[in-house]
């Protein structure tokens, strides 16, 4: 008790500024050497495999197969070959199209859904919120077979071919992205003050008007977060893409698997190209993440899910 009281008094003292040396001493959690050890260990843990991707991608296949960490030969030709050998270019184009479309549509749908869930009372509202959380955890392996059957039934009963097209993949990703994207928007919209909407209503704005003219311009950070998570879901998926695509509609994730399959022949696998392709597949995601890091980390902890 006394300690708290004293702390309050010192807290008011002028010498107490965030970032000052004294404050640094006070909030310090670990002794210096231990801190350094932890940082070095964790950075090495992360950076050694990441560095290996770079190094192996410029190495020869034999070099990688012999377990070289630092390449004995250096060449960038792997980055040229990957585009033709397994159709990575098609894969990347499909991935960008499907995941990008998923991101845009899911952000648009989730802001409308979240707006109603946050601002209006209706029967089943709490159930809907709880459902959003529950649906995020439904395992993909549980869904892939029934969704596959549903889509192939739509071909035989309705005459709409869904399996093997990008549309089937898009609809699937869109749906599976919706629960999390909506939840992110729900947590974001809660933080917006109601007064602006009320003012707009008094000026005669309709529901759609309020959403488009007031909520939308205020929620760009939330929209970006929910869109990016939807993008990542589509980009990272292997399960649905491996079941529901044909060679011409396959995504980058599936194209990368072809390297794994091509190594069963007994010859040395195309390790160098595999690593180069991995890097190319990872690059857009990592860049997106680094640009929007601040927003994404906030959205993640608020949503509480990957």
């Amino acid at each position: 008790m006394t300690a708290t009281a004293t702390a309050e008094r010192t807290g008011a003292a002028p010498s107490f500024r965030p970032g000052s040396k004294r404050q640094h001493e006070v909030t310090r959690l670990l002794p210096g050497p231990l801190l350094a050890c932890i940082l070095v260990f964790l950075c090495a843990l992360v950076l050694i495999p990441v560095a290996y991707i770079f190094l192996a991608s410029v190495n020869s296949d034999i070099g990688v197969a012999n377990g070289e960490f630092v390449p004995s030969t250096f060449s960038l030709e792997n980055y040229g070959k990957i585009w033709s050998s397994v159709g990575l270019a098609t894969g990347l184009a499909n991935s960008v199209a499907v995941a990008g479309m998923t991101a845009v549509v899911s952000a648009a749908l989730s802001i409308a859904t979240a707006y109603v869930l946050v601002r209006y009372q209706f029967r089943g509202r709490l159930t809907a919120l709880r459902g959003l959380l529950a649906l995020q955890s439904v395992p993909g392996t549980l869904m892939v077979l029934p969704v596959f059957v549903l889509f192939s039934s739509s071909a035989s009963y309705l005459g709409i071919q869904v399996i093997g097209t990008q549309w089937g993949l898009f609809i699937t990703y869109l749906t599976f992205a919706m629960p999390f994207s909506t939840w992110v928007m729900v947590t974001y919209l809660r933080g917006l003050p109601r007064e602006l909407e009320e003012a707009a209503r008094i000026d005669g704005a309709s529901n759609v008007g309020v959403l488009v003219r007031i909520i939308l311009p205020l929620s760009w950070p939330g929209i970006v977060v929910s869109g990016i998570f939807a993008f990542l879901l589509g980009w990272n998926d292997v399960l649905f893409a491996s079941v529901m695509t044909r060679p011409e509609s396959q995504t980058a994730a599936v194209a990368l698997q072809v390297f794994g399959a091509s190594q069963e022949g007994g010859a040395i696998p195309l390790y160098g190209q595999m690593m180069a392709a991995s890097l190319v597949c990872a690059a857009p995601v990592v860049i997106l993440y680094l640009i929007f890091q601040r927003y994404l980390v906030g959205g993640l902890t608020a949503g509480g899910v990957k």
Partner: protein
Amino acid sequence: MTTDSFKDLRTAPRPSAGTPAPMAGPAQAGRVATAGPAQAGRVQAAGPGAGANPGPDGPARLNRRPARRKGLSERNRPLWMLIPGGLLMFVIIVVPLLLGIFMSTLSLDQYTLRKWVSAPFIGVENFVEALTSSPLLHSVWLSVSYSLIAMVVTLPLGIAAAVATQNSFRGRAVVRSIFLVPYVLPSFVVATVWRTMFQPDGVIDSALGSVGIDAGLWLNGPQTFWTLVLVQIWASWPFIYLLALSGLQSVDHEVHEASALDGALWWNKLRYVVFPYLKGPLALAFLIGMLHHINNFTLPFVLFGVPAPADVEVLPILTYVTSFQSFRFGLSAAMAFVSLVLIAIPLFIYLRAVKLDDAETPGGKK
């Protein structure tokens, strides 16, 4: 369990006496009006739980409603905006979920799949087969133990990372970005890279060989289980780190001051002052992490390929192989149902713990 990570959601400030003069009238009116549905929401929320509503829920509410002036937010609710998203989730998630449960009672293989509606109904036979004469129980055991082991190792790693980057130092922003890299990399890339590194005579074997360890096979045989655990740990500790960091940021500065004045040693300070703040976020991280690990298909699928070695035939892999390699669709649906039951345990705890609503939002429970 508390969920501190949800507490930072800012709550909407309510209209107060400080509202500018021209606004005061209408805003006030709006407030009076909204009080109506707010009340209704509360009644509704309490109703099913307490069983206080006399008679059926619906008619009672309908009868009461016209007696009161309808609130602003009730008169013109754009509930239709829920339709696109709701319909989508219903058609692509709820319907297939029910379809999956239905399929688990059918004898479904590659011949009957095309006409699955008329496939022979065999009741619980698929479940009996799944539980007695398939590797299902082994897979459940593998899934649970691998998830738990990975979680137990990632917890200290994530906490250490969060504690180490809590205080500012030169280059902290870079370190924080680095920490997120494993989490950001797509799972299929992580698995592809580790698969390459774990090849026989690959870079890991040669590194271990240079210090005189012959580790044996990583991608085949009994050691595969530990390969999977290792890669999962590498990929998922940053998630714990993120949630632990959000917990650390909720530690008040006064608490630091107080423990500094008391001369607490760093270890005692961590143990008795700081860690209690992390309990909520970490419990949340534990649950969500377990859900992710149990549901993780991509990592084992890409690391080992299918058919996977028996020691890494975790639930998602087994379900997938039963469907798309053995074409026992009915059996696979039954297995998927069992994994849903398994998932339901942490999920249920999670849903109970999560705060669905702001305290200030009317109708909010918890």
